């Protein structure tokens, strides 16, 4: 009983810390995205609230919190209120299996405790993919329950898009799973220890997964509904897509879910292809006691690099047309991902570690 309560308290505090960091990052990202985009477009971005607009997320949050919550006439009220929750919860729940630092096990009052991963389950990758698919239900339900043609079109587009691109995400990961021999994200990261030449994206033997990484990145941009694949919310065609009718906190939930998904996808590409918490060169990793400092540092750096890449792509590319999106997903990415699986498995058979 004592052990169980200790374990519960430790896990709950760990969940609290991770959720806090993730939601804080979401708040930072809303500002960072607007700033980075405007710098790339020779603008200033938000400058009014606080010095250089750094308090903009606070103002946005307060505004959304006090806004009127409108449920449109003719909407299905239960589904309408449920949809934002179905979107947000899977986006946050995926962080349970992401390892943020070294895989240590410490002993707290006789209880084994892993400080840098909430739950090291052996099917981590599958778990994240499964919950990412549940998030799509929220989008579709939200679009359908709003009783609006724009929302419905946005929801339908997102359904088609998520189905076609989730396939590519799954297939791009297969190569990594073959090389690491495990679905646990901790084991996958540990298989990439050493310098950057051991990361799966660059590992020369048996086969570098860089092509798979590019496929994964493109498909995950499509999965998080970001530009250039933001057809579900195409503001020039569908007002705002599936959340056209949402306002106040419900809208904020969709917004937070989008950014949380971005962070989750960046964490996944860091862990799967770029060595997770490992430093790019061995001497950049602190030894012994302080390994976790550099571990978390390098993890954060990599994640933020991918988030910057998201903004960078958004600033560069225009939105795809619907048929282009589908053709690219099924006729270009899918064959590349399948070919990568075949080549990787053959080479992994020829050059076993």
């Amino acid at each position, binding site marked *: 009983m004592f052990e169980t309560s200790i374990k519960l308290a430790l896990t709950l505090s760990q969940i609290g810390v991770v959720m806090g960091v993730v939601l804080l990052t979401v708040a930072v990202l809303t500002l960072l995205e607007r700033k*980075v985009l*405007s*710098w*790339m*477009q*020779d*603008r*200033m971005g938000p*400058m009014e609230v606080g010095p250089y607009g750094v308090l903009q997320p606070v103002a946005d949050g307060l505004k959304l919190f006090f806004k009127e919550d409108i449920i449109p006439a003719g909407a299905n009220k239960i589904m309408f209120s449920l949809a934002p929750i179905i979107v947000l919860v899977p986006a946050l729940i995926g962080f349970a299996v992401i390892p943020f630092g070294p895989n240590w096990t410490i002993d707290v009052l006789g209880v084994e405790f892993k400080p840098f991963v909430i739950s090291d389950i052996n099917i981590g990758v599958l778990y994240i993919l499964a919950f990412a698919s549940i998030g799509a239900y929220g989008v579709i339900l939200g679009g359908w329950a709003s009783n609006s043609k724009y929302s419905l079109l946005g929801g339908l587009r997102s359904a088609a898009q998520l189905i076609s691109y989730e396939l590519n995400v799954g297939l791009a990961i297969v190569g990594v799973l073959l090389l690491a021999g495990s679905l646990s994200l901790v084991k996958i990261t540990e298989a990439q220890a050493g310098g950057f030449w051991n990361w799966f994206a660059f590992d020369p033997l048996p086969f570098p997964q860089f092509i798979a990484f590019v496929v994964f990145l493109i498909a995950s941009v499509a999965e998080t509904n970001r530009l250039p694949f933001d057809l579900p919310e195409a503001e020039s065609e569908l007002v705002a897509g599936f959340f056209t009718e949402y306002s106040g906190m419900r809208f904020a939930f969709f917004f937070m879910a989008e950014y949380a998904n971005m962070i989750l996808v960046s964490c996944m590409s860091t862990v799967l292809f770029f060595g997770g918490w490992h430093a790019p060169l061995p001497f950049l990793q602190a030894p012994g006691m302080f390994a976790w400092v550099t571990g978390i540092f390098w993890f954060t750096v990599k994640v933020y690099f991918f988030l910057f890449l998201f903004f*960078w*792509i958004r*600033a*560069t*590319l225009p939105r795809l047309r619907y048929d282009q999106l589908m053709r690219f997903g099924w006729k270009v990415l899918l064959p590349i991902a399948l070919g990568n699986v075949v080549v990787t498995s053959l080479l992994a058979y020829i050059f076993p570690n």
Partner: protein
Amino acid sequence: MKLKKWIQSLIFYEILLGMKETLKHFLKYRPITLEYPHVKKPLPENYRGMLGLLRYDDDTEKCVGCDLCEAACPSRVIRVVSAEVPGEPTKRFAKEYYMDMTRCLFCGLCVEACPVDALGMSQEFEWAVYDKRNLHLNKEQLLAIGDRAFPEREKRLEFQHPNVAYFNVSFKDIPEKEF
């Protein structure tokens, strides 16, 4: 050549070029926008902004109530009610002068039509209001706009003219307009 093109499409060459361009702008951050309410862009000299009625340097109105601005206006913004200057049957002035700025298209034809240059276009453009009725301006409001937009005033027309005798008035007693 064909091989080169093939390789370029394989590595997303054009997208990479575009990303290089955006990164260049990101690293050499030189904003071309202004923080508008705090910093304002200098307007050209002939900017056609809010209309105002002008005065002479002795605080008398320039307007002689001739109605030419009303006739020139394509959007029927202006309404002038003209009247005689009391005690001076040869002189007229605008007893009432209304402008419906909700309709004005700032073409400046009224300013060109005015024979005594009584109308002026200021550089004001921030005239967004919560109530549309606030844009129906009367003579006092238009004079106030003219006063704050054109602090430098002309001499009375009688003194400006090289041949003062043309107006058949002596220097000493120039009749004052009284309202």
